């Protein structure tokens, strides 16, 4: 890509010798078509190019970042970083730069979708529930990432993704659905629309039920949210360093039916094959038969804990956020959705969680609510839609040994409290889940 080649040449010309340096460029084209009240009301398209320059010398480190337009003179940009370096304190956590052998060349010229393409997918979604009020979005992304460092690494990668996400509302109910894939042409707006419309129709006139402990069958989005919390607060090695992670490697913390992997190498995975340091990500076993196998590491967390780097450094966050898996899969089981429902004596089906927040990271006690399709299940059958409930529940205990009754046999990319395109999960049947409040508080 021309802007990268030009930038890299100029940075190299202006760099002093005997200095460690890392240069990164993220070039993105992102577009999102948004609909509400069953019409497109906002439609946006953005092109961005953000550059990060990190330099390290005499045990000091500094990072400066500009977008391409803010770099009027590359020499000045480099000088600014060098000036900033002089005033920086000693960086004891510096863990070096990956070497040339970690280089990866994955850049390719990906085709953009058009606003008309997105509008078509939106129309497919809305058409599935014409008598109801639809809202949601269809988005597409093309990202190109380049990394060079003074240790000889030169990497690039390109990725594309597309999502349709929406709800239908009636006067008394709502139903939602979500789909994600690498390209817009792979998305079927009508499939997501049909699911959301069905949930909204079936959950009209919900009844209030008493809070308490219930058996639950969790839809894809609800499962995805549990796992993303465990990722960010538990499997993130930075949380371990800070003493806030509940995850203990090698201990049977989860039910043996829980098998979690991170699969950046798989062809169907969304996102880059390299992490922010430019190193190729490797497939990783995260939980095997309920036993945690690994944290997600960055250069610094691996260095600090004396563990092997898993290359899960996020672009743009620097080292502040720690390591996060972005191609996580909960491996499917053998139960269909219908089978899971038929196994429930008295419980609740929950399509999606809403506004979940951690009370204490180390216990993973989280509070949140249900949303967009919840049903009471009695003697193996859905009997009635239920209204709003608040849960206060440890997500570690939710997946603990003996609490997972079955794992669904169909996985898909699911939205989560912290984002989309990073988790592919099946549904889950849990023995017990703690609801602490109802509609009246």
């Amino acid at each position, binding site marked *: 890509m021309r802007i990268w080649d030009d930038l890299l040449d100029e940075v190299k010309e202006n760099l002093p010798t005997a200095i460690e340096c890392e240069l990164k460029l993220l070039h993105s084209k992102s577009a999102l078509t948004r609909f*509400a009240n069953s019409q497109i009301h906002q439609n946006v398209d953005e092109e*961005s190019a953000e550059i990060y320059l990190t330099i390290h010398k005499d045990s000091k480190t*500094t990072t400066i970042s500009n977008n391409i337009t803010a770099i009027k003179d590359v020499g000045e940009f480099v000088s600014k970083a060098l000036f900033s370096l002089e005033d920086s304190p000693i960086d004891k956590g510096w863990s070096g730069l990956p070497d040339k052998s970690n280089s990866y060349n994955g850049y390719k010229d990906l085709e953009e979708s058009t606003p008309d393409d997105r509008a078509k997918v939106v129309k497919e979604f809305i058409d599935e529930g014409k008598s109801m009020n639809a809202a949601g979005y269809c988005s597409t992304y093309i990202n190109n990432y380049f990394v060079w460092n003074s240790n000889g690494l030169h990497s690039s990668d390109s990725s594309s993704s597309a999502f349709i996400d929406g709800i239908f509302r009636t006067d008394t109910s709502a139903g939602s659905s979500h789909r994600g894939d690498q390209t817009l042409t792979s998305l079927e707006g009508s499939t997501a629309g049909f699911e959301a419309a069905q949930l909204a129709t079936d959950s009209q006139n919900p009844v209030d039920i008493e809070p308490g402990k219930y058996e639950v069958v969790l839809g894809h989005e609800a499962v995805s949210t549990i796992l993303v919390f465990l990722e960010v607060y538990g499997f993130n090695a930075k949380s371990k360093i800070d003493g806030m992670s509940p995850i203990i490697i090698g201990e049977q913390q989860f039910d043996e039916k829980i098998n979690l992997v991170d699969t950046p190498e798989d062809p169907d995975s969304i996102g880059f094959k390299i992490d922010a340091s430019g190193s190729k990500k490797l497939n990783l076993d995260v939980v095997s038969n309920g036993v945690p196998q690994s944290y997600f590491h960055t250069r610094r967390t691996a260095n600090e804990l004396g563990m092997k780097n898993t290359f899960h450094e996020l672009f743009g966050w620097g080292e502040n956020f720690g390591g996060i898996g972005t191609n996580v899969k909960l491996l499917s089981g053998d139960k269909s959705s219908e089978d899971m429902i038929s196994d429930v004596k008295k419980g609740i089906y929950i399509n999606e969680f809403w506004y979940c927040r951690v009370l204490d990271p180390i216990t993973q006690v989280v509070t949140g609510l249900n949303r967009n399709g919840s049903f009471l299940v009695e003697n193996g059958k859905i009997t009635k839609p239920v209204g709003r409930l608040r849960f*206060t529940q440890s997500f570690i205990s939710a997946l603990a040994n003996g609490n997972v009754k079955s794992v669904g046999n169909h996985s898909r990319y699911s939205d989560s409290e912290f984002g989309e395109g990073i988790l592919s999960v099946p549904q889950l049947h849990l023995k017990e889940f703690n609801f602490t409040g109802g509609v009246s508080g």
Partner: protein
Amino acid sequence: MFEYLELAIDSAVNSGAKYSDARILISKSRNIAAKNGELENYNESEKIGIGIRALVGSSWGFYSTYDLSKPSLTNAGIKAFQIAKASSMVSGDDLPFADVPVVEDSYTTPHDENPFSISNTDQVDLLLRSTDEMKKLGSSRASGRLDFWDTEKWFSSSQGHRIYQNIIESGGGISSLAVGDGETQIRSYPQSFGEYRTGGWEVIKSFEFENHTERLAEESQRLLVAPQCPEGTMDLILEGSQLALQIHESVGHAIELDRILGWEAAYAGTSHLDLKKLNQHKYGSELMNIVADATLPGALATFKYDDEGTPAQRVDIVKEGIWTGVLSGRDSAAVAGVKPGGMVRADGFGRLPMVRMTNVGLLPGTSSLDEIIQSTENGVYMETNRSWSIDDLRLNFQFGCEVGWLVKNGKIIDMVKNPTYTGITPIFWGNMDMLASEEEWVFWGTPNCGKGQPSQIGHTGHPASPARFKDTRIGVRG
């Protein structure tokens, strides 16, 4: 810059847009984070670009780019129009758009010391000293951060606006985390995630971190051995920063007109408020007076014009407990038949402007925190937010705080840990019976309000003083 903007706007209008406006931004930021006496992150950033929107029929089209060359600007206008036009496949009634005065003006945030002209060594040292001291006093993880933003913004519209604003914001905070046997406890100052205001380096100096390190380290460790917050229905006393978040979640978001109109239904949710009940709905007790005021000097959401060229203003939201106003923009106000409130802002040049809270605050009462505690027989005083959750109608909420203080017969008798409370918005606000005065009224700022798709982070203000809420459910645990 105005010539650049007008090149893009003319291109959109000549393509067929009914209305168009655009913003060029130069956004500088400096973010510093320290942990246990060592630098964890230092980043300086600068971004320049243009965002242009075009109104065609029932939809906005928006395009943004970093490329400010003349061909790119012309193309940006055409693209904004084409994107809006593509929406016609799934269109509705034409979107009305309220008029506001067309002005040429400029504004700079009043400040004493621009934080970008202060040596970064001074700023880094402040955090290193504070976190080092807390670490030495037994903190498991002593952390601190400072953030500074200097945003230059040029705005033009097809109606003739030409507005330049330079908004300077500063903030940060420190915290001490104690790790015990299967639990963590934290104390933060000035509030969780830091306190943010418009202004310069003087904002940070006013916090006097050095006077709070010892207390934070001590309280975080004492919480590990403190008894659990009791469970039950009793009086709740909220410290100002927690009340600020309570306002943000249960009032600020509920009064956003785009939510009320269903424009945010899929993601942020809607609202329990119905426009038909404006000026009738009882939101809370007679002590409850909420205003949205973008003109408060020093508050985080203070400016002179919003991102649609509407002047900043003060709008009554709740008067003596009755709901009287909304947060609106030029399109949403026209749809709802109210006056545009000047509450539309965007997160940078790359985002479509949307309804955003300004300084949505609770006007002070006549009491004091001491008087509130002295008049409480059985309750818990809670300080500093730790967790927050509320449903998509902004009705059913649950908050957790960092520390609770058990109040019996007018006195604080014990520290309690893991304090939480839950409630339903109008019932909760209806139970507010004591409110501290202007002497304890602080312009709390929230720098991390998420809304919109693509996601936008907003900076909002919430002036508040401590208050008491009768008969609240306290001590919910998992």
